[in-house]
């Protein structure tokens, strides 16, 4: 099902075809976007089963509401928006025991390595990497993942007020370090 000759259509064209019930277009879109989505969501939730479920939901939503894409920006970003919100919803419904959020905390590496990578990927990356895990998680959820304060709070399992205060502290620190 998933192995076939490459489809030359753009993501946006695939979405348009999906609106008409084109299953091949859907398979192609899935082939293109499942892997990174799986990895990216996997960095935010330690339960692969839950991630699989969320990814499943995400693509079912993509199939059913392909017509709702507004045609602006990257299709990938649209899919991400659905995916991360599904994850937030899934976590709100009750976090299964043992499921912890990972990724934000990062895997601690040697300081040396941090510096090397930060140099390679620019100042912002370095500044981010230098934040404490709690602050970084908030920046990541709101700035990179595009969540609202409330959604970020659900994702991280902290009160919305805490998200706001941490965000303010993170902003101040980043400004300082990038100055």
């Amino acid at each position, binding site marked *: 099902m998933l192995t076939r000759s490459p489809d030359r259509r753009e993501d946006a064209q695939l979405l348009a075809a999906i609106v008409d*019930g084109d*299953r091949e277009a859907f398979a192609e879109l899935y082939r293109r976007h499942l892997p990174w989505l799986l990895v990216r969501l996997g960095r935010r939730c330690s339960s692969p089963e839950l991630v699989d479920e969320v990814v499943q939901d995400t693509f079912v939503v993509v199939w059913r509401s392909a017509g709702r894409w507004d045609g602006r920006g990257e299709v990938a970003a649209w899919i991400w928006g659905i995916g991360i919100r599904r994850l937030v919803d899934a976590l709100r419904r009750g976090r299964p025991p043992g499921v912890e959020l990972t990724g934000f905390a990062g895997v601690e590496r040697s300081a040396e390595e941090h510096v090397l990578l930060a140099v390679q990927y620019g100042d912002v990356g370095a500044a981010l990497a230098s934040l404490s895990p709690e602050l970084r998680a908030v920046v990541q959820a709101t700035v990179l993942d595009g969540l609202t304060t409330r959604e970020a709070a659900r994702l991280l399992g902290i009160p919305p007020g805490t998200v706001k205060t941490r965000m303010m502290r993170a902003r101040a620190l980043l400004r300082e370090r990038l100055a």
Partner: protein
Amino acid sequence: MTVRVRGATKSFGRTTALDSVDLDAGQGVTGLLGPNGAGKTTLLRIIATVLAPDRGTVRLLGRDPSRPDDRTRIRERLGYLPQDAGFHRGFTVFEFVDYVAILKQMTDRRARHDEVRRVIGLTGLASVSAKRIRALSGGMRRRVGLAQALLGDPELLVLDEPTVGLDPEQRLRFREMISHAGEGRTVVLSSHQTEDIAALCTRIAVFHQGRVRFTGTPNELTAQAAGRVWAGTQRSAAALAAWRTGDGVYRNVGDPPAGAELIPPTLEDAYLLLMGEPDLEVTHS
């Protein structure tokens, strides 16, 4: 024999649709050939357990469809494509086949969906399985009809005019699917297309006005026309049918015109001769 019909007679009001018909069908594809209204559909509905004959006996898969218990057992192993297979037009392909699967008593949702997907794949409908049936072409709808008939891998497959309304390419695809289905099971189908019958069937029964005029293999039917088909430069007035072919030669079925020479007959020639009426409706392409 999977299908054994003896002396089946069925009347609707004053019309006798079927007049003391015998039919045997075993593994492979058996074709019922004949003009519209010759009784093919009536017989197929009897074989599909939808209709009971007024007189005569029917045995299907070794059971008697007039007994309720037996009839249910037969229906569990039967696939049926009616002539006017209707659809809930608002259903998607998957929903429709799934609905029939429920009527075929597949209650486990997961297993049923897998089976629905299997028959949808077999009939080449996978890419449209989420489309509404009303959005499909006639040929695609016919495939949906075939897909539901294949549910549960039935031992007996009853197909009423499976190729009607299909364009040549779709007909070829359908022939492939049906001949594939005929491997290891019994298929009984009807058609008024001699080409389909010649291409698909191991046995033929030719129907005319509610009676069976011939039963045998396609070759046996064709052989009946040996010595009766002539090619010549003119049309024979006495021929049963005569037409000018593409290369300018007249093909005369029946009595020859002067100076004509014998040519090998086709199934269609034999069918024409059997029907014995020059104005009979015969489809050829």
